[in-house]
């Protein structure tokens, strides 16, 4: 390992520009002559637009245009799409209602886009928006996940009269039911996976621009996948053909999934730019972000676990209602189906699994992928069930898990996935050691002396990352392939530019990808530039989400580097006057086998470009190679997190005293960056477990629309984390990497809730486990004790 190669904790290259204020985010970009967009949003959760009069507002100072759903229709701007087709049990396709970028006749959630005002300044646009005359016929709103399908519910989309998008299932119902019938013990649990607002530090923003000279549109946008945005805006929404639309996603300040999707705002900005003949800029404020960034999670689930007389798990079944909000966001349909149910086997050998999922419309902000996307929901179900089962059976939760772990690989689960590698017991053992699990009883007694309740909770999570084999996801309904692309351009002086279809918005790709290049080509780390985020520069790529950039994005680079080395060997053969088969490449040097003849990488690069040593008939000049990498399987990062809490029974406050994470991410490129990803993921998972929760009132008004009411985790809510690793290399990609971006958020909620329930006498505790929630659980526990 070199000091900058694979496995080295290299400091992040990109941080110099970020911490010196030189980052260049969408809102930092100002185009000559730009105007500003302000979206008039629905104040009602569900209403018909009876009349909309913008004439008076158009005369307000500074106004360039006011556009509505009628203009969208006139210009035939296509609706926003949901790119993953889910079929119901009965074979019928999901019921996707229209999703115009500006409302047409009806609004379906508070914050829905009614009109856009384009003006010289944001202030003028807001003033004019207040002058728009609009009359609503307010309709009853459906807000609750569990009751959206009830008889007599307000119909949100005509296409789905029972507000049901699909009734989907996975697994063998008959076999699973039979296993339950034969079970010695059945554990049942009802869970709510709370709705979360993604809250990236940088709010969404967009600048649309149109060059009438060559008819080219440019969109600067906060995107995790600019090529996908261009594809959707071109092929589906119809803004412009792909070669006439450039999408730039510059520095992006966090996404957590919320910037995967193609939203109304960027669609409108790029469309409106041509209409007003000026660049059009929009930047979300924080409350707009709460209202309009796609939310995450929001499941209501009943789940059961069957065990035999030996405490062996024999079956699992779950029935989930997933709230998809007022419209289907870009990948919303896949999150509670194919990203959820295939993970319900967890780390356990479970022969029978059956899962039913109903996706429902409600009058709330659309729900889509959020850090973990389906996998945290699955982990929460599995790990709460397993914990509850262990306690009901009077077994130590760690032992119960170990007994039921999958122990040989590859392992075919009953729900699609083939786990390729792992050693779950090793992670558990290491985590228990770091967490000093053996002495928890002593620590519980010490807490009790101080009037406190201490609890410990395990979460054995697994995720499917490295998303994803294109054929496989295609067969499941995905509208796109999920490979990745790379191009490696070696410059004549031996410096290297890598163009990647992955997109970095906090992950540190400029560092980790450069480590791979430095390691494989033997060039100094500083001589490698990673270029991403601009469809004019980078070949088509699929972007960053689902912890895929290491496993898929870097594998594409790996493949391209192979080709560069092969080509370099051919050049070196001419330079070193040997046959190509005798050229070896190692540590940045081409050598002739069995001789001391050598040339370093930079010298060969120069020779490739000056092309004096070979003829054009023999070899093409230049040193530039591209590759597309399509994975052959998902990757399966897994691990064990152990959370230890102390609860103050007087107030119900929970303090996390200790956190142990032992993750198996396969081969680690940069342990410092991986640890950072784990820390961030745990913080978000703890946020979900203890603090965060989007709340609507019965009328569908968003009550948590600012940080005054939406509780984000802060540094003092978290302990210092003990992070350990185990490594089983991933067999399906050349680097052996699995992905680490989502693990913390997937593992953490169950660990926290299991720890709290342990502390409060196994009482059920819902997320977020606010002080009041935990206090009530303490009250119930002490009432039960008194009754006994």
């Amino acid at each position, binding site marked *: 390992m070199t000091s900058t190669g694979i496995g080295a904790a290299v400091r992040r290259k990109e941080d110099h520009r970020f911490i010196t204020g030189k980052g260049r985010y969408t809102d930092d970009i100002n185009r000559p002559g730009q105007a500003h967009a302000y979206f008039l949003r629905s104040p009602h959760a569900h209403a018909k637009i009876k009349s909309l009069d913008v004439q008076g507002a158009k005369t307000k100072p500074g106004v360039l245009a006011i556009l509505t759903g009628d203009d969208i229709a006139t210009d035939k701007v296509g609706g926003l799409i949901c790119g993953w087709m889910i079929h119901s049990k009965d074979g019928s396709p999901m019921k996707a209602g229209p999703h115009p970028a500006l409302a047409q006749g009806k609004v379906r959630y508070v914050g829905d886009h009614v009109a856009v005002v384009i003006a010289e300044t944001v*202030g003028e646009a*807001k003033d004019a928006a207040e002058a728009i005359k609009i009359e609503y016929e307010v309709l009853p709103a459906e807000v609750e996940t569990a009751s959206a399908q009830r008889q007599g519910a307000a119909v949100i989309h005509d296409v789905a009269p029972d507000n049901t998008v699909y009734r989907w299932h996975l697994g063998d119902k008959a076999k699973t039911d039979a296993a339950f019938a034969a079970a010695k013990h059945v554990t049942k649990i009802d869970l709510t996976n709370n709705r979360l607002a993604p809250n990236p530090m940088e709010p969404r923003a967009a600048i649309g621009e149109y060059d009438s000279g060559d008819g080219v549109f440019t969109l600067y946008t906060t995107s995790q996948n600019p090529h996908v945005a261009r594809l959707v805006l071109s092929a589906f929404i119809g803004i412009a053909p792909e070669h006439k639309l450039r999408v730039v996603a510059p520095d992006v300040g966090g996404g957590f999934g919320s910037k995967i999707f193609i939203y109304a705002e960027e669609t409108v900005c790029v469309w409106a730019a041509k209409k007003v003949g000026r660049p059009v800029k929009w930047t979300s404020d924080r*409350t707009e972000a709460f209202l309009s960034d796609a939310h995450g999670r929001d499941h209501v689930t009943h789940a059961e676990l069957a065990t035999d007389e030996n405490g062996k798990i024999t079956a699992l079944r779950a029935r989930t209602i997933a709230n998809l909000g007022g419209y289907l966001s870009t990948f919303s349909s896949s999150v509670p189906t194919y990203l959820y149910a295939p993970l319900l086997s967890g780390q356990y050998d479970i022969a029978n699994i059956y899962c039913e999922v109903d996706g429902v419309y409600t009058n709330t902000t659309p729900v889509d992928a959020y850090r973990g996307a389906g996998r945290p929901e699955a982990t929460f179900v599995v790990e709460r069930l397993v914990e509850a089962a262990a306690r009901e059976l009077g077994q130590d939760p760690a032992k119960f898990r170990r007994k039921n772990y999958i122990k040989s690989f590859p392992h075919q689960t009953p729900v699609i996935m083939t786990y390729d590698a792992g050693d779950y017991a090793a992670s558990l053992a290491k985590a228990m050691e770091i967490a000093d699990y053996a002495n928890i009883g002593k620590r519980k007694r010490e807490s009790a002396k101080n009037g406190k309740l201490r609890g410990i909770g395990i979460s054995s999570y697994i995720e499917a990352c490295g998303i994803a084999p294109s054929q496989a996801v295609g067969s499941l309904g995905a509208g796109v392939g999920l490979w990745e692309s790379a191009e490696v351009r070696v410059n004549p002086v031996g410096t290297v530019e890598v163009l990647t279809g992955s997109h970095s918005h906090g992950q540190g790709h400029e560092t980790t990808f450069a480590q791979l290049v430095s390691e494989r080509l033997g060039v100094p780390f500083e001589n490698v530039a990673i270029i991403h985020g601009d469809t004019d520069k980078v070949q088509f790529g699929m972007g960053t989400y689902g912890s895929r950039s290491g496993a898929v994005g870097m594998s594409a680079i790996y493949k391209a580097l192979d080709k560069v080395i092969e080509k370099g060997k051919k050049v070196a053969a001419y330079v070193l006057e040997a046959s190509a088969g005798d050229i070896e490449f190692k540590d940045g040097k081409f050598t002739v086998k069995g001789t001391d003849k050598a040339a370093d990488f930079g010298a060969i690069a120069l020779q490739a470009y000056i092309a004096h040593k070979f003829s054009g008939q023999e070899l093409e000049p230049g040193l530039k190679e591209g590759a597309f990498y399509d994975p052959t399987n998902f990757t399966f990062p897994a691990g064990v997190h152990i959370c230890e809490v102390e609860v103050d029974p*007087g*107030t119900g*406050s929970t303090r996390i005293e200790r956190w142990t994470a032992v993750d198996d991410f396969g081969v680690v490129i940069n342990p410092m960056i991986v640890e950072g990803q784990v820390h961030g993921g745990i913080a978000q998972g703890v946020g979900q477990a*203890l*603090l965060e929760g989007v*709340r609507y009132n019965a009328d569908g008004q968003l*009550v*948590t629309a600012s*940080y*005054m*009411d*939406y*509780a*984000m985790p802060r540094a003092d809510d978290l302990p210092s984390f003990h992070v350990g690793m185990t490594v089983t290399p991933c067999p399906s990609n050349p680097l052996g990497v699995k992905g680490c971006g989502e693990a913390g958020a997937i593992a953490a909620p169950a660990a926290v809730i299991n720890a709290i329930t342990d502390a409060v006498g196994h009482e059920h505790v819902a997320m977020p486990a*606010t*002080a*009041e929630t935990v*206090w*009530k659980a303490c009250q119930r526990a002490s009432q039960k004790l008194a009754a006994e």
Partner: protein
Amino acid sequence: MYAFEYVRANSVRGAVSALAKHEDGKILAGGHTLLPTMKQRLASPSALVDLGAIKDLAGIEQRGRSLIIGAMTTHAAVAASDVVKASIPSLAEMAHMIGDPAVRNRGTIGGSIANNDPAADYPAACLALNATIVTNQRKIPASDFFKGLYETALEPGEIIVRVAFKPPSRAAYMKFRNPASRFALVGVFVAKKGSDIRVAVTGAGNQGVFRWRAAEEALAKRFNPKSLDGLKADAGMMNADIHASPDYRAHLVAVMTQRAVAKALGK
């Protein structure tokens, strides 16, 4: 934010006359409630009269037995003041618990009291410490000053000049924070000065800050947390929102009061 006139007053008198000139003008102290409200277009004062340049409105001094804090004194200044720490250490501690560093460096005692947010900390301190709110017109005992949610005894054109506190023999503030805003979900300031015991509660009441008389009576018999065992606050007068139910707030009032008494006793 809508357009407004900005006036920087050089004296309290100047501020009063500027306010008189602008119908619907507002006083700007630290601006930590007013400015966000204006940015959200929820308030549209015609003018802001900024008190920030009036020098003698800010400052802290011990004057005989009274601790005097100027209305424009920031929370950070109170928290860091050796004078306050020597005179009423619990007040310095309370000031340090307000908001975050940005809030503490801009927000002022006068602004906080005049706004009388039902979850603000200072109203509880003023009530428990039997403070006197001194305006350009009169002296108002804290017990007459706080009138309900965002309501005070201040008349139009009346500006808080300073607040005078009488140091207690024992006092402590316990705050249970709202996890989102970190305002007080329940804050209890307990003060004992001879036989006068005051328990002031913020964050919990549906009519803003209040004194919990039953606790005061119990503590008058013996100033000890045990005196409060089994005493329950009235849930019927507690606030209800997404962060806490009235029952839970009532419970927290009792817990925080016991803990404040323990803290006041150095336990």
